[in-house]
């Protein structure tokens, strides 16, 4: 209990860029989510399938991160402030890594994780409500993986990704309803849908000398296709014909990520890790909604997003205080994929530093627990070219997480 408390007092990091959530392993989260060239546990299935073959035992790991994001928006003309009341989101991970027989070069694994998603809820009546009142985005990736240690110094791995996602977007419509004068009863629309997509995750892990490890991974783009979303309109009775409830089709690209990682091990107690990510956000060019029942008022929409490909850097370290206790820290820097003029209340994104701390503790031979904590803040001023919403977004993110690992 004492240890747990101490750990929780350390801010730690998970980084989010765009609507990507980088919370896939508590060990790595303690080190700014660097880990492509470290092969420490079953979460290597995500971070580097090539490195998974170097993990020595069977391992099952489950974890979650309580992501608390608080946002605010200062409108630049009225100087009115709006706040988010987003609920705590809990991206989770579940990894299972198995060897066919002892000391086998071949490992089989199954990874389930949530690499994209968040819920943004703006306060009632805020001035940007015709752009967005609430967005819930969730994706679950299921990744069966094969990892093979070619030599004692090289491992390769590949995973097939099946992804399932859901999106729920709500915003107000600028049509006033009601018989009461001065009514503020604006219409609203809710777009709700689920989709799926496919992709892969491949990696290579090399340990040229004991003091150095190198990892290179590529996670493919996954196009989440929402083929039968449901649009529900709440509008004045006289306009119901103009806004018929019905199906819509949309698509959201979850970008490809290439990562080059280095691990340095100066002595048996210290590990340092550096990851350089290149994220293919350029794929998020347009957010389009194609409605099945078009009317004069309800036309298909295409909103430019024009995201840019970006780099992110993650630097972290781990130090073993004793045989059973490790402490970690890290710092990350991410460049925002969102250009000026395209910042939206969905993802008020900015270049940002992430700071993380973490801790790992062994309970005997079989059980390990890792905890981590992330803190990041971002501020972005913009005037959106589509909605003309002009102001400053600011967000604070705190994300404490925990995982429990069983090795056998």
């Amino acid at each position, binding site marked *: 209990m004492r240890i747990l408390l101490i750990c929780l007092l350390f801010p730690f990091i998970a980084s989010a860029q765009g609507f990507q959530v980088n919370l896939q392993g508590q060990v790595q989260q303690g080190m700014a989510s660097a880990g492509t060239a470290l092969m420490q546990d079953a979460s290597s299935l995500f971070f580097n399938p090539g490195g998974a073959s170097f993990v020595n035992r069977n391992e099952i790991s489950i974890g979650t991160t309580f992501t608390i994001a608080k946002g*605010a928006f200062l409108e630049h003309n009225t100087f009115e402030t709006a706040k988010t009341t987003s609920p705590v989101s809990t991206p989770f991970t579940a990894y299972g890594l198995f060897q066919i027989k002892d000391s086998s070069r071949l490992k089989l694994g199954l990874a389930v994780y949530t690499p994209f998603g968040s819920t943004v809820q703006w306060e009632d009546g805020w*001035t940007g409500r015709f752009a967005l009142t609430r967005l819930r985005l969730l994706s679950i990736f299921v990744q069966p993986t094969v990892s093979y240690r070619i030599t004692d110094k090289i491992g390769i791995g590949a995973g097939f990704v099946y992804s399932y996602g859901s999106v729920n977007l709500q915003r107000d419509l600028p049509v006033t309803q009601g018989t009461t004068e001065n009514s503020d009863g604006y219409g609203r629309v809710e777009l709700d849908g689920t989709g799926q997509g496919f992709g892969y995750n491949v990696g290579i892990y090399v340990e040229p000398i004991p003091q150095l490890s190198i990892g290179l991974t590529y996670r493919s783009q996954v196009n989440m296709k929402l083929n039968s979303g449901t649009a529900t309109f709440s509008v004045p009775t006289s306009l119901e014909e103009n806004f018929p409830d019905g199906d819509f089709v949309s698509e959201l690209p979850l970008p490809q990520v290439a990562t080059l990682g280095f691990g340095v091990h100066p002595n048996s107690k210290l590990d340092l890790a550096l990851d350089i990510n290149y994220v293919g956000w350029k794929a998020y060019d347009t957010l389009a909604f194609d409605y099945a029942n078009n009317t004069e008022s309800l036309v298909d929409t295409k909103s430019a997003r024009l995201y840019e490909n970006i780099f992110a850097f993650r630097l972290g370290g781990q130090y073993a205080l004793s045989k059973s206790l490790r402490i970690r820290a890290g710092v990350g820097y991410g460049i925002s994929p969102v250009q000026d003029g395209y910042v939206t209340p969905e993802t008020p994104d900015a270049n940002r530093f992430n700071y993380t701390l973490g801790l790992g503790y062994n309970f005997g031979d079989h059980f390990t627990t890792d905890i981590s904590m992330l803190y990041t803040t971002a501020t972005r001023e913009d005037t959106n070219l589509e909605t003309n919403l002009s102001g400053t977004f600011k967000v604070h993110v705190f994300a404490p997480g925990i995982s429990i690992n069983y090795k056998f």
Partner: protein
Amino acid sequence: MMQLKKYFCLSLLGLALACTPKIESEEFSLGEVDPTSYVAIGGANTAGYSDDALHFRGQQNSFVSIIATQLNQVQNIPFSSPLLSEFSSGINLNGDSRLILGYKTDCNNETSLSPVRFSASGDGNALTNVFSDGPFNNIGVPFMKAIDVNTAGYSNPFYARIASNPASSSILQDVQALNPTFFTIQLGEHDLMEYALSGGTASTPTPVNGASGVGFDGSLNEVVQTITSSGAKGAISNIPDILNYPYFTTVPYNGLTLDAANAQSLNNVFNPLGISFQEGENAFTVEDPNEPFGVRKLVEGELILLSIPLDSVKCNGMGSIVPIPHEYVLTLDEVNIINNARTGYNSAILNTAQQYNLAFVDASTFYNSLNTGIVYNGVSLDAEFVTGGFFSLDGRNLNPIGHALLANEFIKATNDKYNSRIPLANATSYPGVIFP
């Protein structure tokens, strides 16, 4: 202090308590503006007349009330409008109630969404004098011309309602009695509008030049000179292109759609008069005493007024076999008269603003932006009738959201001129057209 707060937040991290981010806002200030006695002078917009009547919701959301609300964020000021009862049906010069959106069945027995009167008749009691409930900062008088501002005993029921002495007082006298320290002026629209609303059958617009009570420039000068004589500061706006209001743009000049048979039967009648029709779109016919047979087709640039009886057009051949009566049409000559007068008024307004060093509001440019459409915080607005979301149901005056945007133009001009920092209004918090 900020640092302390920051560390306090950070120290709470472990408890998973996140502080909501605070974004530093700019300090508001009044600069050279002294809003202690804000007086608004103007016509329909200033009064909050909309939906073709004076009524509570319109008055409450007049752009000048919204300016006062914003001034109040910087310094508490009194601002009072001569409000009708919240439950009043509203009143206009014909004794009608205000317009609301409802359902109307036309001569073809087709029912559709349309502006209809809130009740069979207007609120007759609303026009009794309420001066003793004042003082009122809002001296907006619908249908007031610039030349009427200093007319003693000015005969206008909306002035008589708020006059200190309906038989003998003038608007300008009543303004002076309030000792204004800050003012907004919108004058001149009705000097054009009376002629425009009559389809060019009323007397021509107020002359640009002339003494107070006769010409626009002299009348305006008297108002501004009087009100600034004890150092008051204020903002004045020019006049938008009223002919781009939905009242004049909703019914197209060439809205007569004919099939081959109808075109032929009209040709049988009109060809001998030198007028021909074709299948598809045609210009409507209009009365014209200057033509040999008293009828011709409209030409591009001529405008049909929203007052045209649409049932007559749909079912009784108005605009085809029966030419449209002149009172529903502005011909090219009449359009020119209005445009020339407006140009003259607007240069007089600009000169006056410069001469008296006032904040100048370019309402004309602002309204023009609505013709192509604007997007305000995700809300699309344009100058279309009803669907545009900017004009009220009378097609001439503004909705509350339109008033909020106009108020912001005044506040921006004031901030620029007087080094003040008055926050703009959040227009999305004001209602648009209310749908049943």
